[in-house]
């Protein structure tokens, strides 16, 4: 179990416990975190799980695959901290991670 914090565009903060191995998308969906729908179930096909990872956590994440990068290139509100939450698998290394959900996903 590790902790993950989701910050909504309006400032609402939710911290939840996530089983290692689950993705940040799966954890958000199971806890009804607004702004993360996960429509494609983690196939990196829909971008409804787009999040902005807090700057200080960026270098702890494994590098993006080309498909994820390409999916984000054109996603609304995308920036250098953008990731697909379905591609981030939780682990103790990521205990405490903070992500923000984009305005457009609410």
């Amino acid at each position, binding site marked *: 179990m590790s902790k993950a914090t989701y910050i909504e565009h309006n400032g609402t903060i939710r911290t939840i416990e996530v089983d290692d191995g689950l993705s940040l998308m799966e954890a958000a969906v*199971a806890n*009804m975190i607004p702004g993360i729908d996960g429509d494609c*179930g983690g*196939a990196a096909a*829909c971008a409804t799980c787009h999040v902005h990872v807090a700057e200080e956590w960026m270098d702890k994440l494994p590098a993006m695959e080309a498909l994820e990068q390409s999916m984000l290139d054109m996603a609304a509100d995308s920036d250098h901290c953008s990731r697909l939450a379905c591609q981030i698998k939780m682990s103790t290394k990521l205990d405490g991670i903070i992500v923000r959900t984009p305005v457009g996903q609410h």
Partner: protein
Amino acid sequence: MSTGTVVIVGGGQAAAQTAVSLRQEGYAGSIVLISDEAVPPYQRPPLSKAYLAGQLAPERLFLRPLAFYEQQKIELRLDRRVTRIDVINHQVELGDGECLGFDHLVLATGGRPRALVCPGAEHPRLHYLRNVKDVAAIQSRLKPGAHVALVGGGYIGLEIAAVTRKLELEVTVLEAAPSLLARVTCPQVAGFYQREHEAHGVNIRCGVMVTGIDGDETHPALLTGDHQRIEADFIVAGIGLLPNVELAMTAGIICDNGIVVDEECRTSVPRIYAVGDCTQHPNSVYQTRVRLESVPNAIEQGKTTAAAICGKSKPYRAVPWFWSDQYDIKLQTAGLNRGYDEVVIRGTPESRSFAAYYLQAGRLLAVDAINRPAEFTVAKSWIAEGLRIPAARLADESITVKNLAAAA
């Protein structure tokens, strides 16, 4: 509108989304979801992909963990079937005679695989793929070296071909149409998939009708219109879906290749809605009526219905989209290509990264993006906006996707 009871018939993506969205919309009444499957609502796409390959644990298929439904006070009645709707007294009847009253009813009954109709179609080794039970049956036959004959060269059939090849089975695909994916895509994309599958060792035969199944209990043989006999260890047929409309029809709800609904998922009977694969609905982008089989459609209709029940209007007006994963090829398709008169290919199939744009009198109808997620995302918004981009410009790869969008 926050008290009362919503009864949801069905336990798939559309049913689950409706229940979840009702709570997100602030619905405070009771929600009862009745499914004839024994497990909580789950995703079907992995059934022909990672889950079939044994790479995904069953719980990971579930759309939400069981505890979620408890927390949200969504009552799941699993392994129960609704057998009748009483539209006068607003209640549904379950198989065992129990009756349940509703203020609003949502039909999310999905569909069932179209069955092969031919002599021998009751063969115990003829399988279909729609639910977790089907997967379990198929998985018991996935032995390296075994020969699987797949009837139907649509997305599901081809995804099964990709998985079974990876598991080292011998794979034959039989398609009645002259090419694979004939109903859904253009010859360029169909040809690409044919070459990819053949390169992976799949034996593909198009233009072949299955006329019968012969052979003994453990060795079915497909008989074809061109007088061949194809022996296999098992068969999986993926030849389309029939919407589950009987429950609605018997209740006098208007159906026409699906339960007929409006932009807010209302059926012809007040207080009764329908969502997902079972609906025939208007599509504002194309000014036509369609029945779609896709997760995004189920999700959007679920959201629309929940809003409508809560007295808010969120009409369903989205560009349809879909994806398919085969080997390392990701296809994302947006829009409906029906009626296209021109195809523009951007990129080259040989590079395994290209997009096929479908135009009708210059208007962009649809796109098939192969290993090109960025283009898919942009093109989807172009389709929604009804953009026109000159064919020569679309095909010109020296213009970046971003600039195509900017200048269009």
